[in-house]
């Protein structure tokens, strides 16, 4: 690992100012993505700016109409939060399936989202609940929809120096299911992951690791939402639309064909489970 300057700002504004002072500076949260890339020499930062001292919100807050998760909340905190387990159990499950406990004790949800891997485990549940991300440039804040935050492999909507401060999730009585397939049961990145969500008889379908970003499949949602009655034939049609939309690649975690087959099988199963239809 090359040497760098290490900065511990005490405000968000201080963090952003430091970041903007060079072209090759990086924010540090849990370090479980960043330090691996630095070690491999893929990233050679001039400055590392530690967000953990910068006064970002960290915990999980329960408000009347929304839930707020600080960008620095660790995956372990989210996995074990009794409140998240009760209200958004599929997010707790996604968090609990990211890496191993050793990783989850350090890895933050903000880091998982800003790293913007198409396989990021917390992305599909957050898109499914229509979460919004609060981004700060040290002066102003803006909100983006989770779905619009991801722009490509490792690319986000963050402008230079902007950071992710907090995640806002509207409270709702919807039900969701998260599914992750990886080569080994625990610890590995997803071959595919997905969340299917249902609230007020409307479905949301979000697939990960099968496109340059996690992808919400609106055509398939509409198929289900327009129907008077959901039966197996309709679910199969919706699954076919999902398969038509995704563009998986072949890599060491599986071939494109295998990924499509996995998605088909499991999206069918999850919709069936939520709709109460045997598949």
């Amino acid at each position: 690992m090359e040497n760098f300057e290490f900065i511990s700002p005490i405000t968000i504004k201080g963090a952003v100012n430091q970041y903007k002072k060079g072209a090759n500076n990086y924010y540090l949260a849990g370090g479980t993505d960043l330090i691996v890339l630095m070690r491999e020499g893929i990233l050679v930062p001039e400055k590392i700016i530690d967000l953990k001292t910068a006064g970002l919100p960290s915990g999980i807050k329960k408000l009347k109409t929304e839930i707020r998760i600080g960008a620095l909340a660790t995956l372990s905190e989210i996995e074990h939060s009794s409140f998240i387990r009760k209200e958004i159990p599929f997010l707790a499950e996604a968090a609990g399936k990211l890496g191993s406990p050793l990783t989850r004790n350090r890895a933050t949800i903000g880091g998982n989202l800003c790293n913007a891997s198409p396989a990021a485990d917390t992305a599909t549940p957050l898109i499914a609940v229509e979460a919004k991300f609060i981004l700060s440039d040290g002066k102003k804040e803006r909100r983006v929809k989770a779905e619009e935050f991801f722009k490509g492999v490792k690319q986000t909507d963050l402008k230079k120096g902007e950071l992710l401060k907090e995640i806002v999730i509207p409270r709702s009585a919807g039900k969701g299911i998260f599914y992750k397939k990886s080569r080994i049961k625990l610890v590995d990145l997803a071959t595919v992951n997905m969340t299917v969500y249902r609230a007020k008889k409307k479905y949301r379908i979000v697939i990960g690791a099968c496109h340059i970003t996690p992808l919400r499949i609106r055509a398939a949602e509409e198929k289900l939402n327009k129907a008077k009655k959901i039966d197996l034939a309709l679910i199969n049609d919706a699954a076919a639309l999902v398969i038509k939309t995704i563009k998986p690649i072949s890599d060491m975690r599986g071939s494109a064909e295998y990924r499509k087959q996995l998605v088909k099988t499991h999206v069918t199963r999850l919709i069936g489970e939520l709709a109460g239809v045997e598949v």
Partner: protein
Amino acid sequence: MSKDITLNVNGIDHHVNIQGNETLLKVLRDKLGLTAAKEGCGAGECGACAVIYNGSPASSCLILAIEAEGVEILTLEGITPKDHLHPIQQAFIDKGAVQCGFCTPGMIVTTYSLLKSNPDPTEEEIKKAISGNLCRCTGYVQIIEAIREAARRLKRSKGRRK
């Protein structure tokens, strides 16, 4: 950059001069002489470098020493009593859970943390807790047995102390 920092390891403040790019693992081993934590992969995958960091087990190869200033760190050396072995260590020996031994310090650190928060774990809970600690020798069966045995012994000795 290089900097003089204070690291709190096993309850003792250590003043060390470190480089920005040195990991906590490297500083523990090379500068503080605490060599229980091992470098297996250096990339967060194997758990050989596990230490208790701010109360929870974590891979010290993915923590920069410079960010560890002010954080309480506990290594296997700090878990081991001065004049005898810790019951977890003895259970690992008694159950044949140590072969080459490279994974053992990390396994014991993780076990220590597990049994602190959950003194009577199920087999599933044990498997989940050690899922970030890889062992290429034992096949895990003896390790899981050793953890169950350690849990029994710790409960017994706690009962005696009451």
